[in-house]
């Protein structure tokens, strides 16, 4: 890439927010503690001082209320960015997202569209116990009418927001809570739009296709690295888009390697990994040399103690074990 800089994921999100607020006066940021407090993950620190409390709006703790209001503002011609602090609190706003944002365009016969971006942190890994460690991307990826993206790299954290804001339909953006401190390369100023539809091959390989997204990408790359030492060459696919899924990239990889392991922090039953596994069975069955493996969270409310939280969620060891299972070595 022509000239690049190193940013943390948090700085990339803040830069994207600032750019959006500067470039389009219809854009405004709304959510719990996004203003005076600077954001639960400090992603909007300084924005209140720069853009004022009309465009960086602290809200009361009324997730259904302010999410619905954001949807209404989008209908009214604004381009809101609603920050629901974490997916755990989005359950209170599910009705507004599913019954209004996702449905309105189709239900109104194409008269209305809802150009809103809803951002939320997601995932476990910080010992916040069951109510604060959910990974429910698949609930949103199940709903027609929504586009769902999950930036895992710092470059995507920087690039996806502006592109999402141009989308006339609702975009749900998941930021895994353990990524905010990660550092990564970002293109020099200016290049900010990126393709929301395509998955990315983060590591090409010929033996096994590792398909993952968001917070699990790091562990999956570590697993691929460890397996490379044993001469096992893994291809790592970062889905980036959870709806629509980029079937083409998935199938071309699986038909090449004949083996697939899906790493997904959601609970196994009804997971995104389940959907992807079914699609592989439907579209690449004759290329499979082993059953598709899934590395998901154990079916348990995520416990507080570190050793149980680790045991409950996908780890490098469990990914490596799954890959070996597909190779029957």
């Amino acid at each position, binding site marked *: 890439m022509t000239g690049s800089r190193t940013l943390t994921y*948090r700085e990339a999100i803040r830069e994207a927010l600032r750019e959006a607020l500067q470039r389009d006066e219809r854009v405004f940021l709304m959510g719990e503690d996004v203003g005076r407090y*600077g954001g639960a*993950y*400090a992603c909007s*620190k300084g924005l209140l001082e720069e853009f004022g409390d009309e465009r960086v709006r602290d809200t009361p703790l009324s997730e259904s209320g302010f999410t619905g209001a954001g949807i209404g503002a989008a209908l009214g011609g604004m381009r809101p960015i609603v920050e629901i602090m974490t997916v755990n609190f989005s359950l209170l706003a599910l009705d507004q997202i599913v019954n209004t944002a996702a449905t309105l365009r189709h239900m109104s016969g194409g008269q209305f569209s809802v150009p809103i971006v809803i951002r939320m942190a997601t995932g476990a890994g*910080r*010992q*916040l116990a069951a109510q604060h460690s959910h990974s429910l991307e698949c609930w949103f990826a199940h709903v027609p009418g929504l586009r769902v993206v999950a930036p895992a790299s710092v470059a995507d954290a920087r690039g996806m927001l502006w592109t999402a804001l141009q989308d006339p339909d609702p975009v749900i953006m998941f930021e895994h*809570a*353990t990524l*905010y*401190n990660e550092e990564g390369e970002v293109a020099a100023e200016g290049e900010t739009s990126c393709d929301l539809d395509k998955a990315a091959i983060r590591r090409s390989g010929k033996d096994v296709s590792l398909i993952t997204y968001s917070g699990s990408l790091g562990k999956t790359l570590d697993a691929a690295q460890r397996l490379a030492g044993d001469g096992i060459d893994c291809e790592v696919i970062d889905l980036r888009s959870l709806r629509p899924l980029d079937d083409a990239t998935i199938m071309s990889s699986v038909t090449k390697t*004949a083996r697939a392991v899906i790493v997904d922090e959601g609970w*196994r039953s009804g997971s995104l990994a389940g959907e992807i596994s079914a699609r592989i069975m439907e579209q690449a*069955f*004759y*290329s*499979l*040399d*082993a059953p598709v493996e*899934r*590395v*998901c969270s*154990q079916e348990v409310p995520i416990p507080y*103690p*570190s*050793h*149980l939280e*680790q*045991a*409950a969620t996908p*780890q490098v*060891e*469990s990914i490596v*074990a*799954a890959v070996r299972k597909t190779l*029957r070595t």
Partner: protein
Amino acid sequence: MIEFKMPSLGADMEQGTLVEWLKKPGDVIHKGDVLAVVETQKGAIEIEVFSDGVLRDCRASPGDHVPVGEVIAILDGDKTSVMPTVKPSFSPVPSHKPVSAERLPGKPKITPAARRLAQQLGLDISNIAADSSGVVGLRQVQASSPETSPAEAGRAGIDFKEMRKAIAAAMARSKREIPHYYVSSDIDVTALMDWLAQENASRSVADRLLYAVPLFRVLARTLVDTPELNGHYEQDTFSPAQTVNAGIAIAMRGGGLVAPSIRDVAGKSIDELRISLTDLVGRVRSGRLRSSELSNATVTFSNLGERTADTLMPIIYPPQVAIIGCGQIVSRPWVKDGEIHVRQIMSVTVAGDHRVSDGRSAARFLSRLEQRLTAPEGS
């Protein structure tokens, strides 16, 4: 002596930047006093001390990035009762124990990819040894057929050795049983090619036409008017076909030929035919043909394509009664309305079964074909 460490101030805080000391060495410290200010992602946070004593030494200076747990000051005073953390070790919980639904105990477990490869290589699965976990996979199939390299084996849908034999048998039978006659003529296809160039200019790349598409359509429509070239001859009787199901001779990489058919070519629109042809060639290349496609052709078109040869004297596929061979398109001097022009010429040959038709039907077919090709209404 008490080591005062950079405290953990948050669930995902890994380090802090010392901003300023609020106490200096020698100061008396009381439990709860603020010792220093540390900058974190969330802003500046005061750090309190949890024991009484005297500050002896500061180990970090303003601006230092200090990881959580690193010593930043030394105090003289009574030791607090905070014991070192005992990190629990954990073994990964065995991932989901799948219920192994064995269909037929004892029957070897064969993966889909292995089954497909074995079929391509014409191998009998049952005598391929399974691996240590009782499964027959790609590796096992590849290992048991040394002479075909995996790359080549996994390619065409039809097994090469078998196919060679099949072609040989059909051709021999055809030569033996069918009294072939051949009639051919050179046809000016310039108008067709001009129409094609103009049509493709208005089409996006993905919808572009090969000349074979309009050509096969015209051939099929002309056959509708010469039914004696389109049908099957079995047990000494000829049954003309209702539609023109044309077998398309498709060469495969690495040798070999197969002529799967497209149903009712005459009835298809240009785009329907384009899609069928693309799909058919694609499936030939990936070895996924349907048996019906290999048997229900009522006539065959064999188109050599560019830079090949001028004329083709093809052999009829029994039980069909004719095959149309088209040579390459070449620019040639051509007399038209008394003058010499450079025109694009293609030689078309009809091979017919003399038991069913004769040269006159083939000649009538060729002249009608010429009329259609010289004034193609792009129908």
